[in-house]
């Protein structure tokens, strides 16, 4: 098996009646998912989708969305899953970049986005039942692209990370082997499909005949409900950003009842898991705990299984050693933090519309090497920040703020850490301009997915500058810590 969509066909033959996907719109068995994916692939082909074409998928998580992803691959196409919270304007920006043949969405969203797109754009309604059909055969090689994941770009234009079937398989095979995922497993899919974490849940399940249970955006950070979901659905493999786990621990009453016996592995990635909270988690469940690391461009390239001795230290657990068949190293002098480089099968093909990526990938993350060869995460070498695992380029948010007619100048910093992490915007209004917080948020909401919308907006008379005239972000972040933001 070298192509992602072969997995569901194979699982449908071996386990036709086992549940494949459960979402807000119900459940699909492998046989149903296989049939629907075929019907939709035929529909896509009839709509003009040819191998190598892009299929944009813009909708809240559902079985229908998973079906569309499989259908796109069966048609030989490349799917582009957008963050469901992305507004029409942002979705249109991505569409202009990747020029999809078809946009799969709901009728309401199609109406919303249509004015922003070429009038020739073909829309496919995700909710529409389709007659059974066999799609025309599409030749896809393992080095062909499977999906493009768009991530925050520093200039305000999202960047499309292009991943091939082989890229995805390098990680998925590693994950299946490391976790021994099998048909009895029930994986939670917490991350949005636009986020690389979701590749493990989806394909870890679909490649083994296991079940994947979708967590929608509204449920993703609701502590009590999320803890209930974990129990009721008898999840065996959980993978999310640490923030979601911490919320369940702190506010969801997760620890008030014994750990469900079904839970056998808890994986986390995307941000640092504070050691105190991790100790609580480890004290509650006997499940394996794994810290995974890797940017979207490489997916997981290092991993560390938490051991008893890691919990005795007063610092976060290491990000570990190479995974997914990759080679990782740092170029720094011994003992000093250096940038982490990655080479290997999980490294992306490149950014959409740019030159293909060649050679090692420089992560921008600073690490140190321990005596046992494991890496420890130190920090970033640029302005990129993480908010609950989501990569945030402040410049992306500032670019949106700068298009607001009442804003003369804006700077965005990340305030707080872990659960308290939030984007804070400091704006200088144009002379005589008056505006409310809602108007500025709304302006951002029309342009950015919700995770990029500033949680706080402060109006200031001027932004602090450094000696060379640049906006002094350190000073801005400092005013937040002192609680003296004006």
């Amino acid at each position, binding site marked *: 098996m070298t192509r992602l969509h072969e997995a569901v066909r194979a699982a449908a033959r071996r386990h036709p009646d086992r549940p494949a996907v459960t979402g807000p719109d119900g459940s699909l068995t492998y046989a149903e998912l296989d049939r629907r994916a075929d019907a939709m692939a035929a529909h896509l082909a009839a709509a003009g989708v040819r191998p190598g074409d892009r299929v944009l998928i813009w909708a809240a998580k559902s079985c229908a969305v998973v079906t569309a992803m499989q259908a796109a691959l069966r048609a030989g196409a490349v799917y582009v899953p957008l963050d469901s919270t992305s507004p029409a304007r942002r979705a249109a920006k991505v569409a202009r970049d990747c020029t999809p043949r078809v946009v799969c969405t709901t009728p309401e969203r199609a109406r919303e986005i249509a004015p922003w797109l070429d009038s020739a754009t073909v829309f496919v309604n995700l909710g529409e039942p389709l007659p059974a059909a066999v799609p025309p055969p599409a030749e896809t090689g393992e080095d062909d692209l499977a999906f493009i994941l768009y991530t925050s770009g520093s200039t305000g234009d999202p960047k499309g990370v292009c991943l091939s079937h082989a890229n995805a398989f390098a990680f998925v095979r590693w994950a299946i082997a490391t976790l021994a995922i099998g048909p009895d497993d029930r994986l939670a899919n917490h991350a949005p499909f636009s986020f690389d974490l979701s590749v493990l849940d989806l394909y870890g399940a679909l490649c083994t005949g296991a079940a994947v249970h979708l967590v929608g955006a509204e449920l993703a950070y*609701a502590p009590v409900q999320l803890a*209930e979901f974990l129990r009721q659905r008898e999840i065996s493999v959980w993978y999310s950003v640490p923030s979601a786990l911490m919320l369940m621990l702190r506010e969801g009453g997760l620890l008030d009842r014994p750990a469900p016996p079904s839970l056998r592995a808890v994986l986390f990635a995307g941000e640092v898991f504070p050691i105190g909270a991790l100790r609580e988690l480890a004290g509650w469940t006997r499940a394996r705990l794994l810290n995974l690391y890797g940017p979207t461009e490489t997916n997981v390239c290092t991993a560390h299984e938490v051991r008893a001795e890691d919990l005795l230290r007063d610092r976060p657990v290491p990000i570990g050693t190479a995974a997914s068949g990759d080679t990782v190293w740092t170029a720094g002098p011994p003992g000093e933090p250096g940038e982490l480089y990655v080479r290997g099968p999980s490294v992306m093909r490149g950014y959409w519309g740019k030159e293909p990526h060649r050679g090692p990938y420089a992560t921008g993350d600073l690490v140190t090497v321990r005596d046992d060869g494991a890496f420890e995460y130190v920090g970033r070498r640029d302005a990129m920040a993480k908010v*609950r695992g989501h990569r945030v380029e402040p410049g992306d948010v500032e670019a949106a703020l700068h298009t607001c007619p009442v804003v003369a100048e804006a700077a965005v910093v990340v305030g707080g850490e872990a659960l308290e992490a939030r984007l804070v915007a400091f704006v200088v209004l144009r002379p005589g301009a008056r505006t409310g917080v809602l*108007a500025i948020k709304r302006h951002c909401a*029309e342009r950015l997915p919700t995770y990029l919308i500033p949680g706080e907006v402060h109006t200031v008379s001027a932004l602090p500058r450094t000696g060379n005239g640049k906006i002094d972000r350190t000073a801005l972040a400092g005013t937040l810590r002192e609680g003296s933001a004006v």
Partner: protein
Amino acid sequence: MQADVEQRLVEFIRDKFLAGDPEGELGADTPLLQWGILDSLKVAILLTFIREQLGVIVPFQHLSAKNFGTVGGIAKLVRELGEPAPDYADSVHSLPPA
């Protein structure tokens, strides 16, 4: 109770997420998710308020963009799901018979 719940939700959202909303921009029909007033983390904060102050636990199956799109939608959901909290006992009689 509908109007009352709605009012309490509006006040809470104004106070917590809109710096008091001095321009009075928030209404029962304001698109909360679309306009970036609520994100997934703020939905969680709101759920805590609904649980602790309105006495209603929203099951995970009800957490959807449809139900959380506007204050009016949330108030409707809260009313449908819930017995009023004890300090709401006085307003029980104003509910339509079940």
